[in-house]
């Protein structure tokens, strides 16, 4: 076998392997994207698709298993679980969306301000964020609930604050690097003001990083929000929300009617797995790393 032939065989094999890897990666990405898209569509069109009113109790159909009338059965007051899951997708998705977008915006603003202004400002902002970092999210949420009463809005607010340092730490590092790049000095020499450079040049360059961070964090934020609702410090009954549904179905598990908890739990896990796969795939694509 000549070296040319060898090279060509090796090349072909490598190409095939790369193609296989790409396809496999793409397949997972497409599947994950499809799951996420389906759930988002279900959340948006829940009132149109849901077969029942999510809060309509039916004393004649309490804690039923799956049937033609109730695909996923009913809960302990006879409410249709499928309809509650569909409607529950709305707060379950919207709350973590607000948290990630809020923490992304405020965290980026703080980080860029700290990196750009430097000196005393940088130290002050970093110190405040370090204190927040010392609080587990749960403690913040508990304090928030104790002060203002338990509710989804308070849970969203406290979680947003809890996530700020995570966003800001990553973004600050990149913003510092960005500030020292030659193009910034060039823009300065052209006579552009600091505000303009930051808003028009530095922030847009940091945007991919922030987006990837936000997309990856979304699934885990959803878990946190659902956990707060589960322990009674998030969404309040009779709201249909996934974490709250797991909690409300829990007594049924011992009574032999686990469907509400199990389906709501399954919805959370499937959606979060899809989200994290999608986030990981997208970040690999955006950063160009093919590992």
């Amino acid at each position, binding site marked *: 076998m000549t070296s040319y032939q060898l090279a060509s065989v090796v090349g072909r094999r490598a190409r095939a392997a790369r193609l296989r890897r790409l396809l496999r990666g793409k397949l997972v990405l497409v599947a994950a994207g499809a799951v996420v898209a389906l759930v988002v569509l279900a959340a948006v069109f829940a009132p149109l698709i849901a077969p029942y009113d999510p809060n309509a109790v039916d004393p004649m159909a309490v804690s039923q298993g799956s049937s033609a009338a109730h695909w996923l059965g009913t809960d302990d007051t006879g409410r249709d679980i499928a309809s509650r899951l569909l409607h529950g997708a709305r707060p379950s998705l919207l709350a973590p969306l607000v948290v990630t977008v809020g923490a992304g915006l405020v965290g980026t603003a703080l980080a860029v301000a700290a990196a750009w202004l430097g000196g005393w400002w940088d130290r002050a902002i970093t110190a405040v964020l370090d204190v927040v970092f010392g609080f587990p999210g749960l403690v913040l949420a508990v304090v928030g609930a104790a002060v203002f009463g338990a509710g989804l809005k308070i849970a969203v607010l406290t979680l947003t604050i809890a996530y700020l340092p995570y966003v800001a730490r990553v973004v600050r590092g990149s913003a510092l690097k960005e500030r020292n790049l030659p193009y910034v000095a060039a823009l300065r020499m052209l006579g552009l003001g600091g505000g303009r450079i930051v808003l028009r040049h530095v922030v847009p360059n940091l945007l991919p990083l922030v987006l990837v961070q936000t997309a990856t964090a979304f699934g885990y934020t959803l878990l946190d929000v659902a956990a707060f609702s589960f322990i009674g*410090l998030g969404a309040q009954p009779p709201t249909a929300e996934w974490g709250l549904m797991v909690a409300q179905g829990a007594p049924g598990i011992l009574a032999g009617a686990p469907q509400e908890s199990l389906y709501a739990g399954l919805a*959370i*896990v499937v959606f979060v797995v899809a989200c994290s796969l999608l986030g990981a795939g997208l970040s690999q694509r955006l950063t160009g790393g093919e590992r």
Partner: protein
Amino acid sequence: MIWRFLARRTVALLATLLVASVVIYGGLFLAPGDPATLLVGGGKPPNPQLLAEIHRQYHLDDPFYAQYWRWLTGMLHGDAGQSLSYHDQVSHLITARIGTTALLIGYATVLIVLFGVSAGVVAGLRGGRTATAVTAATTTLMAVPTFVSAVLLIWLFAVRLNWLPAYGNGTGLADQLTHLTLPAIALAVSWLAYVAQVTRSAVDGEQRAEHVQTARSRGIPERLVVRKHILRNASGPILSVAGVAVAGLIAGCSVVEQTFGLNGVGALLIQSAAKQDLAVVQALALLTVVAFAVVNTLVDLATAALDHRVPVGGAA
């Protein structure tokens, strides 16, 4: 050098805790509503004389810093005030429950170190199919939130198989451990998966390192290569991620205790927050933040002690 590092970290820790205590006390100080009304209870507007008496007794009219100082010095002496909803000393409530929580966290830590680290080491050393299987399993487990795994474990092991109890504390050590088995698994599982992943990639990284290949080529027995060259070098990241996991357990035990009806401080924190029982929430929030920060600092110190490349002197 190491002493200066130690001193600096200790000062930073104390400063963080001091600020945290101001935030916790201040946040709850600002809570709307008069605690005295809560104490009297009942629907009718209470008698103003009684309210004034309660205000005087609980120093409710003092300025913020005086109340904060009284609270902080009280906390340092083990006096956390009175619970309004449990009608008991907060310190009694906590000491009665902290054992359960400590046992739960200890149990979960043992599970994480035993199974998480060993699964990661095996996957890292073997590679191939084993590594793929471990990665797939841990990725899935990491997406299962604690409360869902708790519910699944109750359903599977307590209801379907009837192997283990689902609710309550139990009495005596053996019975307590039986009762804590499902909660500890629920608490540990997603961190266990995370630790396994980090361990796998740390061991895998060392496997490929030049010094390991050199050691192998010199004919050093594989057992020694694994012990002295791979595991010793991989221990830094493993230790630090295990520490992060323990800190996470401190925050996570509330959910587990609540789900399994365990009588621990985590469940107490949630229940008193729902009842807006401020004295209990203040004490427990501070306790949690202290435990969390101390564990994190200890992990940093241990990592620095193990790995001499971590800069302990100048600015990081």
